[in-house]
């Protein structure tokens, strides 16, 4: 696939001739220097943007062929997103943050609350269920964001620099949670990060540079693969 952006009169090619397969049930990390196209790749794979050319298939569906409304439905049903800047809503308590997307899925209040409590419990934040973001630390906010992402049991979880705004302890907790989600839920977790701790925990690390995958490394106990052309 290809993707470029227009900046003024200049067209900047961000991704070039990329061919990539992400496997289910593992934590895949995309790493690379600033400006190499990691976030753009993440936005394409998570159905936030469309490629200029090429095909993106996820869960048996061609994302490139979908109209914006279908993409929104796909994101709602099948994906969870964790942002670098948390992006929580200041007015909502932790429980309400997690419940919010469940309401749009059509779940009733009772079921939404049950799932939200379960997700918060999984990230260890039930004691903070009735606190608003202003009362939470950075690590706690990110854990609420993860709970929000996993509450609808998505098949795909995307995380954009999830630990960069966090201290060492908080960052480690977040990494442990993401790793556990990939293992125990069978969720495909795709992270963009520089954090070396994430590299240690990832099942697969894709090194990017200048809009292309330069190397593809797997954990020694996983099956090795040569980088795709």
């Amino acid at each position, binding site marked *: 696939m290809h993707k470029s952006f227009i900046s003024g009169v200049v067209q900047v090619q961000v991704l070039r001739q990329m061919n990539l397969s992400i496997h289910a049930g593992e934590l895949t990390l995309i790493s690379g220097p600033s400006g190499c196209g990691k*976030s753009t790749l993440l936005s394409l794979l998570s159905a936030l943007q469309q490629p200029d050319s090429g095909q993106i298939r996820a869960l048996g569906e061609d994302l490139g062929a979908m109209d*914006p409304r279908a993409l929104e*439905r796909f994101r709602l049903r099948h994906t969870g997103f964790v942002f670098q800047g948390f992006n929580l*809503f200041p007015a909502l308590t932790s429980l309400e943050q997690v419940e*919010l997307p469940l309401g749009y899925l059509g779940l009733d209040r009772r079921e939404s609350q049950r799932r939200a409590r379960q997700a918060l419990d999984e990230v260890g934040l039930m004691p903070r269920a009735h606190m608003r973001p202003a009362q939470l630390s950075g690590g706690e906010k990110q854990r609420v964001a993860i709970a929000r992402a996993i509450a609808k049991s998505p098949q795909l979880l995307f995380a*954009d620099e999830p630990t960069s705004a966090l201290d060492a302890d908080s960052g480690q907790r977040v990494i442990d949670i993401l790793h556990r989600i990939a293992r125990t839920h069978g969720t495909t977790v795709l992270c963009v990060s520089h954090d070396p701790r994430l590299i240690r925990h990832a099942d697969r690390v894709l090194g990017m540079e200048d809009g292309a995958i330069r190397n593809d490394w797997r954990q020694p106990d996983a099956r090795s693969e040569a980088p795709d052309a």
Partner: protein
Amino acid sequence: MIALARKTLIHEWRRFMPAVFAVGFSCLLLVAQAALVLGIFGSAAVYVRASGADLWAGYPGTQSVNFGRAIGRDVDLRLAMDPAVAVTEDYVWVDGDWRSAQGSGGVSVYVSGIRTAPGGLLFSGLLAPWQRDALREPGAAIVDRADLSTLGTAVGGTAWINTHPVRVVAAVDGLRGLGGVNVLTSIDSARQIAGAEATAGPTYVVARTHQPEQAAEVQARLAGGAPGFGPFAVWTAEEFALRSQLYWLLDTGAGVAVLFMVGIVCLVGTVVTSQSLMGVVAGSAREYAVLNALGVSRRSLGRLVIEQAGWIGGLGLLLGASASAALLALAHAYGVPVAMNGPTAAACALLVGGVTLLSGLVAMRGLMAADPALLLR
């Protein structure tokens, strides 16, 4: 479903207060403007609306009450002949020049000569029985309380109208009109002031029908006048009041200028409201982008924007309504000609509310062109 719009409005009330105030201010602006127009131009028909008559007979083509000409002295008989008419009454209109005892310059006045017997129709909404009775005294006059200073007199004071002596026996509220100061006298006093003979015809004849609904029928029957009674036309009270108001509003420079000002005020109110709402929506851009990234459809986001705009509009209208009521009460206390009715207030609220909702949606469309992928870093 979590009530994100409402909770955000409550929790971040400081962020939304400017928009609420902007809506409230626009509402106040519109209502004040409308109240002044209704009050000022409504006073052109004070002679009709403050009276208990259902029908007005006057010279054909009369554009406004203050442009009346004498009609035949038997017109009252013609009206009384109609089986639906219960009672008729003469009304003598005189243009006068008021000179106070203090010797200040002349003031243009409109003298209304009315029946002084109990139960008179003219100005029945303004005059207490004793006040109407007090007009029996030759040269007795009643003026509006707010005009006493303009006339340079007080209750009990004397003055001259067209060199005829008059004495102010009472002051009432709600008598102010357009173009000149209104003075009430008896028919005899008015004729003396006009220098007219007692046999001269009145300016208008007013009538009350047995049932108010019969007024339109009588008007239709007498629409073409009646041979032998001289030229006259008949209007229902509502028609004649509207006729007078529309003349002042549409056929005078002052009226056109006021209408132009109303247009400007509406435009200002609309712009202030829409810009405030657009600012609120733009300020929530990141929240909407996050929701869209989480998979919330643009349609649902539109509903969210509508809800938020609805809350802001509702609170703003509440604030505007309270401020408007206080302002109009203050204006009324100081004798400023203001008037308001239900349909006009509702129209102002609908305009401001509609602009609020529409602005939110227009801002929303602009935001949705933005890319949720921009949330990434």
